[in-house]
């Protein structure tokens, strides 16, 4: 049952991000709900599941993108592992720690993804505008998504 619910949550997170970018993007800017979902899953889930969630959410992001297929999968997998390491030392349930983690990991992910692009395809898919603003949007999105995931975990036992 939890597996079905997790698949549903996975698809819902990806679809919601797609819908948001299609309808509510403001000057091409929108919070990256796939990133937020991957981060929240990494905070809440165990290490294996967290990395798997990062990988599959990354694949979803790769499907939405137009190049470097596998780049987001690697990025979010590594992010999940980093979060697993960090959360052993810090309390990631708090609002402030989530905000800081989202802000810093957003930039780290972007830089890493751009590095991958340069390494594999020598293209730069992320503009300066997105690089400067999206981490803040993600920082705002993560606590909200965390609450959704947390409640789902408490009620259904997923993650």
């Amino acid at each position, binding site marked *: 049952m939890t597996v079905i619910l997790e698949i549903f949550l996975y698809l819902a997170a990806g679809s919601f991000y797609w819908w948001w970018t299609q309808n509510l993007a403001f000057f091409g800017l929108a919070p990256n709900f796939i990133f937020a979902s991957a981060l929240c899953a990494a905070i809440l889930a*165990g*290490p*294996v599941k967290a*990395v*798997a969630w*990062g*990988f599959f959410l*990354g694949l979803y992001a*790769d*499907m939405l993108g*137009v*190049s*470097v*297929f*596998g*780049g987001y*999968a*690697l990025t979010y*997998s*590594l992010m*999940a*592992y980093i979060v*697993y390491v960090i959360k052993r030392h810090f309390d990631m349930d708090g609002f402030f720690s989530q905000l800081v983690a989202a802000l810093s990991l957003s930039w780290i992910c972007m830089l890493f993804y751009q590095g*991958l692009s340069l390494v*594999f395809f020598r293209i730069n898919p992320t503009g300066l505008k997105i690089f400067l603003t999206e981490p803040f949007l993600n920082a705002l999105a993560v606590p909200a998504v965390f609450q959704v995931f947390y409640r789902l975990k408490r009620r259904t036992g997923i993650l």
Partner: protein
Amino acid sequence: MSREKDAANYAIVFFAVLSVLLLIFPASKITHTARMAASYSLYPSLHYGAKYGYFVRNVPSNFLALFETDQENRALKDKIKELEVKLLNASALVSERDRIAGEMRLSRTLPWTGSWARIVNKTPSDWYGSFFIDKGSEDGIGVNDTVLGMQEDRAGLAGRVFEVYSRFSKVLLVTNSAASAVCAIAPSGIEALVEGKGTRLLRVNYVPEQSALAEGAEITTASGGLLFPAGVPVGRVAKVYPRESFMNFITADVTPAVDVNTLKEVFVVRRNLPKEVSAAAGAGWSEGDLPAGRQAQYNEQVAADRR
């Protein structure tokens, strides 16, 4: 804790290797083609704006050609629908025009080249002499163009263009006392001169006395005339007058083929006559003056009769 850490390490290694394999493997083309096919089946549109080329750069050209052909096909179908609607509207307009033409007893199937014009002014003091039409030199109207009217779905001679201005013209009616036309009388086809009288009727003149001129005979413009195209109905013989004692010709009243009182629009036939003819006509020349030989013959006959 150690087992969890090991599991995490195995997981990250496994998924990292998988990701790198995906990165190394040229999967972008396949992925984006599949994604495009899936999205196109849900929402058949290729409008990505200015980034279109960037979005489709990984999609094989033959696959893209299929999508673009489908888009073209859809656009053409829309165009066909639009044109079908326009065709239906056009058919309705043609039907309406035919109905109105029928109501007004107009015919549009004339064998001459020209254009339709509306009568815009009639002069009460010159009722059977002339009127103005709303077409002029800007519309290609020229001096001495033949003017036809429609009577019961048949064209008939109404007159000729006498004066041309930029946007209107003056028509000299066939009923004008200064107007005349060389005509042929059915069934023999003998030529005679039809002249206006300044009244509702015309007069046919110079008909040889031995001719069998019967009431009701149809008169059409003759090929011997220069101003008017041959074969245009002019009228029918209404009353034949007995020969005058001093003349070898007989005359008759002719009911015009077109009643100028009922005309609302006319058809102006392009004549493109030589400049010399137009110049002569502009100086008051009418077709009555044209058959110079016949005029001389008439004068000689009158003189002989008087002797």
